[in-house]
């Protein structure tokens, strides 16, 4: 275990409502940990507590094994935050924004200028460095928001839904940037309610709902642990009528459905029976035109865990 940050039994209430209920997790060095959950799950509250902007009612947060309260400035020096809102000065240029925020981390002189240029270059804003932020598109402002957070080269980058409300092109740029930052050794804690983003970038996932962490693991392990089934979907061309009941004689088969030319077979995941299924189709003088295997998506995982869709 090489945890940069660990959170133990953290809780927070607003008035009478408990929004974070004694959650515990750790952020390991070099990973992209995605905190996935619907709106109101408690993701942003957790992030705000971790960033020091919100107090907490109980529990403990540690940075490299030390209580954050006892090493707050050391933690903050190694932390970059991309908040959900655009935290930039609209009347300043891209360069002035990045320079100002980076200077708050003690950077100055040539080192500061180098890091400002590097962050702007990374965010694809170097050519527009002199332009005021208010002249930027939504996607460019989002990228500037990221540049302001990474200029001081933090060890841990916390990103709170950084792609909300932007076009697909800018979203792809941001997701690509996150993967690059991870390759450069930065540890990333990323919150989102977009399943496809988690599928694309995560190395580990925490699923949060109603203030608690309901599942934790890699996307593969979550799917493995929660679903013991998979589906084979075949497009077939029949010469004689295929007897669907025959499939139930094969070990592991749970359900077989046939609609026009499409045969959907649900089977236990841990039983290797594809060769028998194919053999049965061929012996019944049918021709397989197409075959693919469908495994569970994170959306299915979430639905199974909570009984509701992520965007409900």
């Amino acid at each position, binding site marked *: 275990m090489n945890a940069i940050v660990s959170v133990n039994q953290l809780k927070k209430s607003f008035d009478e409502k408990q929004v974070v209920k004694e959650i515990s997790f750790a952020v390991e060095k070099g990973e992209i940990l995605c905190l996935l959950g619907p709106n109101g799950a408690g993701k942003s509250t957790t992030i705000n507590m971790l*960033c020091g*902007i*919100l107090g907490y009612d109980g529990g403990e947060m540690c940075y490299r094994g030390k209580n954050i309260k006892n090493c707050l400035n050391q933690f*903050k*020096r190694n932390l*970059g935050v991309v908040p959900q809102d655009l*935290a930039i*000065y609209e009347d300043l240029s891209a360069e002035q924004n990045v320079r100002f*925020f980076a200077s*708050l981390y003690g950077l100055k002189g040539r080192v500061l200028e180098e890091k400002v240029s590097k962050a702007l270059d990374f965010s694809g804003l170097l050519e527009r460095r002199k332009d005021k932020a208010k002249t930027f598109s939504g996607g460019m402002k989002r990228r500037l928001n990221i540049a302001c957070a990474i200029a001081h080269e933090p060890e841990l980058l916390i990103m709170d839904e950084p792609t909300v409300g932007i076009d697909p092109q800018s979203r792809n740029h941001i997701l690509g940037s996150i993967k690059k930052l991870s390759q450069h050794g930065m540890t990333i804690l990323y919150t989102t309610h977009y399943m496809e983003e988690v599928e694309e970038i995560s190395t580990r996932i925490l699923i949060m709902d109603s203030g608690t962490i309901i599942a934790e693991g890699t996307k593969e392990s979550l799917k493995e642990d929660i679903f013991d089934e998979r589906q084979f979907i075949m497009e077939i061309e029949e010469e004689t009528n295929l007897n669907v009941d025959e499939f139930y004689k094969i070990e592991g088969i749970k359900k077989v459905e046939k609609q026009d030319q499409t045969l959907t077979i649900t089977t236990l995941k841990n039983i290797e029976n594809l060769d028998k299924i194919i053999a049965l189709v061929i012996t019944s003088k049918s021709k397989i035109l197409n075959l693919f295997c469908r495994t569970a998506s994170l959306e299915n995982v979430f639905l199974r865990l909570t009984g509701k869709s992520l965007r409900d």
Partner: protein
Amino acid sequence: MTAINLRNLYLISKEDFKNLFKNPMWLFYNIAFPFLLIVVLGLLSKDSYGGAISAFDYYGITLMIYTAISSGMTSANAFMEVTIRKPNMRIIYAPGNERVIYLSKILSSFLFCLLCHLGVAALTFTIFHIRVDAIPQLLILLSLTELFSVGLGVMFCCIFKTEAMANQILSIVINIFAILGGLLFSMDGYGQVVRRLSYLSPAKWLANTSFSMIYDHDFSWFYSTVMGLILAIIVVFIICAKTFRKEDCIC
């Protein structure tokens, strides 16, 4: 305060100071508005005054006091205006004490307002030959009033959590102070009760102290007014410290 806090206080104040000078609305409010107010009221009332004190002599002083006690509107805006509030979050993420946020807003607004108002005073006093005396004492009073007022603006933001609410209430408080203190028209002719009530306004004390020093060379009120202002500034700073919550910077 540690070195990083002092450095961040300097950096944030500098940026806020520059931002205030880039905002045409606040430049108008702190330069053109008081200048026009002195010109208009001075011209309209010039026949009502005569002898040793002209209308410009009266309004030159009272409206500068009015302008100084209105500085809280500028600091409230610099602290919690919606476009400023979001970048404030990043300041909280940075190392150092989050209290530098409101301290830097007080410092930058204080310097901005003081510079603007000194410029207006220099201009109007020269153009309209407004009589001034005891300049060092007047500068001390002006500086302390500005500091009290910008602190009051930030204090209202800390209490009421939004710039809009803070400015609405601040504007009522300022105008009550101004009217009661006789800054726009003298309240002395409205009877004993009103005259006594007018002393509840700090504006009245400031006006009386200033006129006593300029026309009577009487400095007896000066020290008590200065002490009162320092006390008020301390109270405002304590309330800011007690009511400021970094959570309120979350948009």
